[in-house]
């Protein structure tokens, strides 16, 4: 139960930290870390404008999207702090649950009948289908490595003892970080701050959302970031640490994660749109190398 709270709290600061880092590096005056939260509260208080073309799908989609991300959050443990829901193969449910949210957002974008939003929708559909195997292969390799198939047990039994398990850790964190970037449409897949609809992915899908709905969507994408941050932190937090150290290190890792993304966004250029698929499939390729390493550790591949 505590883990949900922790993830939610981390989510609130996440975007603030990214923006602060970007502003600092860009030489601009830094906004407060709470600025995104203020924006969100303002949105929650606002009215809304709906397009004449839209139907019930468009109206219900943000609620479903946030609900899917929120329910997915219930599966994530933090160190010793257990998750609310846990069963064998819950990461399959987790991925497909996020899939439902994406499904609804895609059809909601198409519901507006706008050319821009169709563009974003089909890009989102393509990228999320390409990134899915990477997550599964990664989960599969960790499952093979620890002989457990739920988030809870995976992380409880994940010990970074040998050299090879370190590489699993490093590569897994690397791949997960980029999965988070693809899922949330940040640089280098998509530039959230661009001003041209033609080059956007996620931002262009929500062009017509406003008020409460837009707030839900923002909240969902913060949560999503924080969920991946929590998964990454689980690779580093050791279960034998005392609980308060675990919680502190969780926040520390989330902050470092946000910091890294801020730095990455300041110095990297966005990929060419047509280069995105190959860049995303590369994540699966690396995940397969991780899988092969796990096979070596478990003595499935015997080398000498």
């Amino acid at each position, binding site marked *: 139960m505590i883990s949900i709270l922790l993830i939610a709290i981390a989510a609130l600061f996440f975007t603030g930290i990214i923006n602060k880092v970007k502003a600092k590096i860009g030489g601009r005056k830094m906004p407060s870390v709470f600025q995104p939260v203020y924006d969100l509260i303002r949105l929650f208080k606002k009215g809304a404008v709906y397009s004449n073309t839209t139907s019930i799908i468009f109206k219900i989609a943000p609620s479903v999207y946030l609900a899917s991300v929120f329910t997915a959050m219930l599966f994530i443990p933090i160190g010793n702090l257990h998750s609310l829901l846990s069963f064998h193969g819950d990461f399959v449910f987790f991925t497909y649950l996020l899939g439902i949210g994406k499904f609804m957002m895609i059809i909601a974008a198409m519901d507006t009948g706008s050319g821009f939003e169709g563009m974003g929708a089909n890009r989102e559909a393509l990228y999320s289908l390409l990134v899915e195997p990477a997550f599964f292969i990664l989960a599969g390799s960790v499952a093979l490595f620890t002989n457990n198939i739920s988030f809870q047990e995976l992380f409880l039994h994940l010990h970074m003892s040998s*050299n*090879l398990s*370190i*590489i699993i850790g490093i*590569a897994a964190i690397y791949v997960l970080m980029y999965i988070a970037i693809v899922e949330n449409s940040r640089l280098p897949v998509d530039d959230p701050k661009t001003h041209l609809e033609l080059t956007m992915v996620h931002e262009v899908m929500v062009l017509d959302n406003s008020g409460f709905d837009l707030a839900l969507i923002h909240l969902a994408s913060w949560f999503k970031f924080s969920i991946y941050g929590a998964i990454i932190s689980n690779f580093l937090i050791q279960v034998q640490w005392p609980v308060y150290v675990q919680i502190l290190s969780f926040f520390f890792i989330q902050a470092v994660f946000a910091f890294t993304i801020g730095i990455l966004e300041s110095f990297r250029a966005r990929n060419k749109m047509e*280069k995105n*698929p*190959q*860049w995303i*499939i*590369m994540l*699966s*390729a*690396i995940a*397969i*190398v991780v899988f*092969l*390493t796990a*096979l*070596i550790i478990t003595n*499935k*591949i*015997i*080398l*000498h």
Partner: protein
Amino acid sequence: MTDLFITFYAITLIYFALSERVKKFIWLLAIQGLILFGVVFFSLHKIELFDFIFILVETLLVKSIVVPWFLDEVRKRNHLKREHQPYIPVFYSIIIVVISLIVSFMLSDYLHNDQMHTQYFTVAFASIIFGIYFIIIHKNIFSHVVGYLIIENGIFLLSLAVGSAMPLMVNLAVLLDVFMGVLVLGIFINRVGNTFKSVEAGNLSKLKD
């Protein structure tokens, strides 16, 4: 520890398939040199001190500094930036390199031979296959040189796999070949670049008469 470097080496191969910039190729070659240095450093300390030092110098100095530096000079002279569209889209190249990695890992599991260090064989085989594939799909002579160097790295690893004493001999021979190759091709690229204003391999066929 060696397995760690082996895995890194496998990842560099994936990046080779992904990259399209000439500068990135050179960087990756330098990194591969460093990885080979790591491999040698952690696995070959039983052999004679002189050989050991020689191999270290060879991997660290030649593979990761001299050759990349030379290639970089060639790149600058010819204003090479981006490789043209390869014959096979990068998307499929990545799938192919992954499959070749899986096959070579499986192959090394089947080779139960005490004489052989299958550890090195895993990526060595993949590296040679990938190097050949790399040359096939690219149009640029410069990339062909890069492909030969990938193959050379693969052969180096293969020689490690075959025995502890062999690497020196094999590597000496191969290195000499490749070094000459790089030099000759480097000069060649410069000449072709001067003559045709581009380094497409297709231009070479115009020279046949």
